[in-house]
């Protein structure tokens, strides 16, 4: 048995510290004269830009932060006033509204970008987002065409295409920063990415245990942040080593994120950021632990073996760009969900369908048909939004969630003789 807790909350504490440090550095980048690049989270090529000492900003994180800090509403309205339809992605509107309001975010000031690197991985709306940012900021927009992972037959040529574009991007970065490309430096960065990815994968896989020491959705969304914004840095490696120590300590004490784990679920889809706490509470009261989620894979499918690799620098960057969850075709996504349900011994699948993100949501209703009617996996389908606070109805959510877990409880009682599993 283990001794006292040494790492309790170490992950969350360090995560907050590192993120606020990152915002600070970003806010002052323009005054310091350090070039700033904006990129997306999904399948981004942060390592390559880090090799040129860009400071990296992520418009999606701006929107996420505004959402969770309950500041998204006015920015979204500002963008709608400028002509953006109420039906387009709220993440984009939040960020454009923020920019139009002077870039003063609740977490710091947005720096002016010197480069907009659009990596179009998993989301076509990304293209529209950066086209609009290019117009608003006048910064050069470089487009990295990452093909959809549609067919195994296409993978080799897709990867070669991305690698060639990365070689071209190196030239662009040399021009903007005036620095020569240093491959040794890139290898070092990739090695740090790989170490963080290894530790993150071990954290994710710890959720196979019963009880799970970790909530792979409600906690993972915080635990994954350093990997998305600081990948390739020493601080990022330190974070994942600390977080893993915290998880291992929980395992040693036989505890998890809940007082009692009553249901294990796989969660598909992003969280409703503006109502994150309330949403989580609706599950917590039923003792629901998420043992796997797909949202924690939008930045890369590391648990499926994706790794940055110092020995294959550009190839591994290209593979990471292609293999993020929303860039996988729906058949691969469904297979992955099915594996999660099986390998993580889940009782049910929860699909959170958000209006903003067609990249995620189109296909989820069809997947529900497949899972609940054809595969016999209990499936809860919920609808709201990840960005726009107007689409969340707590009473309706509560009713659906309660009804679902009540039914699961009944099933479990009825089948108690068969091992207590629904």
């Amino acid at each position, binding site marked *: 048995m283990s001794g006292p807790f040494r790492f309790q909350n170490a992950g969350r504490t360090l995560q907050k510290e590192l993120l606020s440090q990152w915002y600070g550095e970003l806010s002052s980048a323009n005054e310091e004269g350090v070039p700033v690049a904006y990129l997306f989270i999904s399948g981004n090529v942060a390592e390559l830009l880090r090799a040129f000492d860009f400071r990296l900003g992520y418009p999606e994180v701006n929107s996420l932060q505004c959402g969770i800090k309950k500041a998204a509403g006015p920015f979204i309205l500002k963008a709608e006033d400028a002509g953006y339809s109420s039906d387009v992605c709220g993440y984009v509107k939040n960020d454009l509204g923020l920019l139009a309001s002077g870039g003063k975010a609740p977490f710091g000031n947005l720096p002016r970008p010197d480069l907009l690197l659009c990596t179009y991985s998993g989301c076509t709306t990304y293209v529209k987002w950066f*086209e609009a940012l*290019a117009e608003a900021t006048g910064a050069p927009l470089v487009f990295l*065409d990452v093909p959809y992972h549609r067919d195994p*037959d296409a993978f080799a*040529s897709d990867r070669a295409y991305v690698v060639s574009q990365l070689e*071209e991007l190196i030239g662009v970065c040399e021009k903007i920063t005036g620095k020569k490309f240093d491959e040794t430096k890139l290898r070092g960065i990739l090695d740090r990415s790989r170490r963080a990815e290894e530790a993150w994968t071990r954290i994710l896989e710890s959720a196979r245990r019963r009880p799970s020491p970790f909530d792979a959705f409600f906690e993972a969304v915080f635990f994954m942040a350093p990997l998305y914004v600081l990948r390739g840095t020493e601080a990022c490696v330190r974070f994942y080593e600390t977080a893993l120590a915290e998880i291992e300590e929980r395992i040693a004490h036989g505890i998890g994120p809940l007082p009692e784990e009553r249901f294990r679920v796989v969660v598909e889809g992003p969280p409703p950021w503006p109502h994150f706490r309330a949403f989580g509470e609706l599950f917590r009261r039923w003792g629901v632990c998420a043992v796997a989620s797909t949202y924690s894979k939008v930045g890369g499918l590391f648990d499926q073996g994706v790794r940055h690799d110092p020995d294959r620098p550009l190839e591994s960057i290209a593979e990471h760009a292609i293999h993020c969850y929303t860039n996988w075709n729906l058949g691969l996504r469904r297979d992955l969900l099915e594996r999660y349900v099986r390998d993580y011994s889940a009782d049910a699948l929860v699909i959170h369908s958000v209006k903003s993100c*067609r990249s995620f949501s*189109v*296909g989820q209703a069809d997947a529900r048909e497949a899972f609940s009617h054809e595969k016999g996996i209990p499936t809860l389908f919920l609808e709201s939004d990840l960005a726009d606070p107007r689409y969340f109805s707590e009473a309706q959510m509560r009713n659906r969630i309660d009804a679902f877990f009540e039914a699961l409880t009944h099933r479990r009682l009825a089948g108690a003789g068969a091992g207590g599993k629904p």
Partner: protein
Amino acid sequence: MTVHGRGNRPPVVTEPTLGPPVSPDATLDGILERCRSLAGDPSLEAVSRWKGEHPGALAIGLFPVYAPAELVEAVGGLPVPLRGGGGRIELERADARMQSFVCSITRSTLELGLSGRLAALDGVIFPSICDAARNLSGIFRRNFPSLLVEYLHLPSNAASRVAVDYGRGEFSRLLGKLEARAGRRATEEDLARAIVAGNEHRDLVRRLYALRREDPGRISSLESWVLLRAGDVLPRGEHAATLRRALDLLPRRATRPRDRIRVLLHGAFCEQPPLELLATLEEAGCEVVGDDLLLGTRWLRAPVRAGGDPLGALAEAYLRDSTPSAVRHGTTESKGEAILEAVSRCRADGVVFATAKFCEPGLFDLVLEKRVLDRAGVPSLAFEFEERMGAFESIRTQVETFVESLLLFGGERPVPERAGRRP
């Protein structure tokens, strides 16, 4: 401004009865009549008939906006551009499989499949235009396992020196799938012949648009739409003959009275608006002298190089000669330039943006394009549509107001288009 609504309304066109193919002495009325019967037939009867006449040949659906139909033709197949249900079908099964916050064309195309109306097809190709269509390809794969469902990644980094090679590879991959399904190889001659036919066809479509610009009294935008839409279910050669004959006859047709303003209709490049919407625009005083309806029929703006490496030529044409579009990456300057150029080519007095509800590419580009027009002093009006919208009164009022304001203040604008208006 957003106008949309739902409701029951009678279909515009009655269910089709197939007329005889166009004869060399066909009249314009006869041609239009036949095209009307073919246009938008949701059960693809003409395709079934073609399949009956060509045993073993493939009919391949092409989701908008552009995919190289030449590849299908090169394996002896019939490319069938899909345009959704066009408001003519009820959504009975698709609702359960696709949420309500997605554009009509993806939902109704799924319904066409689930209700068996795509039974004449052997496959469907989905080009990379948006996330909704991309994921629809995955829904198709699961629900229609016997169909060949292919997602085509059109290269979108035109600045990259490897983009043409990549595009060539992707076209060749797709061709391989078609060949395997058709059980026959496409020779270089097959491809070259398809390329020549495609060039000729696009040229005829361009002539039709030139006629609408130069002599809009001869044909309404609705008739032009119907003429082109019939091509979705006809072999390219047969449709080319129809267009050729119509283009011979149109200049001899009596002109309609001309007291309208010249309008460029923009934004319905993928999902098609209800025909009532086109009729409403005309009734409210617009002469639609240019549009991006059925954009795939003229997506490539220059002939594809014939001879040499045909797949390379198609890839090169895609990267070099594609129409600037919301479904392709482009800068505001390039897109802004393109819409201003279209305005001046059409000598349009104003632009009417009709965007499909929930269409993210269209709705995002609308904001940037509208700003460009505002800066250039070109008046514009914007609204959204859905396939199955029922009420057009609010749109009619908006358009009438727009037309009146142009007639009233048009003369003061610095734009020279009005000089080009016909008496």
